[in-house]
């Protein structure tokens, strides 16, 4: 996994993950991008803060869990921090497997887990200049419930 202020190139990341391999039959890539609106508010930009050390631990943990649950050949998580503007890439999850089901499901699992457990926080600046921390979504915790592991902070 990688935490980075710089942008990522989805094609290059996939090529690096699968290059030289002949055992991969399916690659799924999810990219999360920044929207210019959030709950009806016009957004000009955002800063992403994280907890260095814990972030890496949490992402390593969830990747290990994904590899335990599905027969993955490889996986990658890239998450950006720092200042972003609408249209920018935020997060990339890539999963590679022999067959598509494992790759699709593991990618979704990684994103659901990341959303509710990885210590990142977004602060948005509106077009009106007002800055506000983004609230966590109840729907994200509900999504995690599908995988039958409650968020750690709720035990």
């Amino acid at each position, binding site marked *: 996994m990688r935490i980075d202020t710089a942008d990522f190139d989805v094609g290059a990341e996939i090529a690096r993950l699968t290059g030289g391999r002949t055992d991969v039959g399916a690659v799924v890539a999810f990219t999360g991008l920044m929207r210019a609106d959030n709950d009806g508010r016009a957004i000009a930009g955002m800063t992403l803060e994280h907890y260095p050390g814990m972030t890496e631990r949490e992402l390593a943990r969830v990747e290990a869990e994904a590899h335990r649950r599905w027969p993955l050949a490889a996986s990658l998580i890239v998450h950006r921090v720092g200042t972003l503007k609408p249209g920018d890439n935020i997060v990339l999850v890539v999963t590679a497997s022999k067959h598509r089901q494992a790759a699709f499901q593991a990618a979704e699992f990684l994103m659901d887990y*990341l959303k509710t457990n990885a*210590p990142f*926080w977004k602060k948005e600046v509106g077009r009106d200049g007002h800055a506000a921390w983004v609230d*966590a979504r109840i729907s994200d915790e509900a999504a995690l419930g599908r995988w039958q592991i409650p968020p750690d*902070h709720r035990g």
Partner: protein
Amino acid sequence: MRVKLMYFAWVREKIGRAEEELELPAGIATVAELIDWLKQQGPQYAEAFRRAEVVRAAINQTHVQPSASIAGAAEIAFFPPVTGG
């Protein structure tokens, strides 16, 4: 017990610092008890933990419940629910 406390996002902004080392008085056994003690350390702490039920905690970089023991903790972090992805 001496411990490093770390604060993130709006918890950090309300307290006014990202981290500090504090000598905790004896008798503080859990995260919830630590929060109760911190709330008495100044108005900025009282404000940061005013809605203590929404503040999450981690001990040594692992998510924990308010009831978790702080014995042996080197680093305790407080932060809002996460919003990455």
